[in-house]
């Protein structure tokens, strides 16, 4: 049964990829690329390395797609690959941990979003990312998955291989440390 690409579920897309359609994999790259870059960047702290790691993670995911049994969400399964690939890359190579300003998702300049607000938002995001890069990688990783992707502590435990209790502890510590760091730099309205 051939369904149009945009109406296919992820499961159907995976089946299509396994049947040999590489183009369908583009959907997964588009959907999970930004979060994968964020996760990888939290661990390696370098933009160029993060992109290379994400590229490798996507290729790994493509080749091991047959082993995805669909018991968990595709995102959890894939982020686990990204997480492990990032950790291996950091172990194998001393990455440059210097914080580098990164590209944010481009928001189309709309008329109602005034320029000053955009600059403020950009600066705020820059500060948050700078603060996140000062946290322990596991803490920033847990915070990223919990607040950006709405993963439960159980799902985060699955991705990172930590215990559920450990995830909760890291979440608590991460929140505390991030608050301390941000209170020094950000002024809340």
């Amino acid at each position: 049964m051939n369904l149009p690409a945009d109406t296919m579920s992820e499961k159907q897309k995976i089946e299509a990829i396994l049947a040999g359609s590489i183009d369908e994999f583009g959907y997964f790259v588009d959907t999970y690329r930004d979060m994968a870059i964020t996760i990888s960047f939290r661990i390696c702290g370098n933009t160029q390395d993060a992109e290379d790691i994400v590229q490798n993670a996507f290729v790994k995911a493509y080749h091991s797609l047959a082993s995805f049994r669909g018991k968990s969400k595709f995102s959890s399964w894939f982020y686990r690959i990204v997480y492990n690939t990032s950790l291996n890359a950091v172990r194998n190579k001393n990455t440059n941990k210097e914080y580098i300003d990164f590209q944010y998702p481009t928001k189309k300049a709309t008329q109602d979003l005034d320029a000053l607000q955009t600059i403020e938002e950009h600066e705020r995001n820059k500060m948050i990312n700078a603060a996140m890069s000062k946290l322990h990688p596991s803490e920033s990783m847990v915070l990223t998955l919990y607040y950006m992707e709405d993963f439960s502590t159980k799902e985060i435990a699955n991705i990172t291989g930590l215990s559920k209790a450990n995830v909760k502890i890291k979440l608590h510590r991460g929140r505390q440390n991030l608050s301390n760091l941000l209170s020094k730099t950000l002024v809340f309205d």
Partner: protein
Amino acid sequence: MKKNEDSTFKILLSGAKLSGNERLKSRILNQIEVENALKSNKALRQSSTKGNLTPFWMLYAVFPLAGVYFINTGFENAPILFMLLLTSIVCCAFWAITYIDDKRKMRKT
């Protein structure tokens, strides 16, 4: 209190998602295509290497028959026997070199 804290963090962190290079998608799809091509090429070469064996096995089968023929004829055509032996040695050496070279290249890819 906890919910307020959670929503504050959610708002703060929601904008901090990073974005990769737009070319990353084409890089990934290209790499997958190249790796797939290499894989199928490797499979093709493996099967062609197996196929290469056939003529040499035929040669090995012909050689004892030729031996029987020359023994029966009382080695009247000894120089031809010598040429046949030399040719088969050269063929075997050539096959061995290409086979080993193929294996080495496959290991590299």
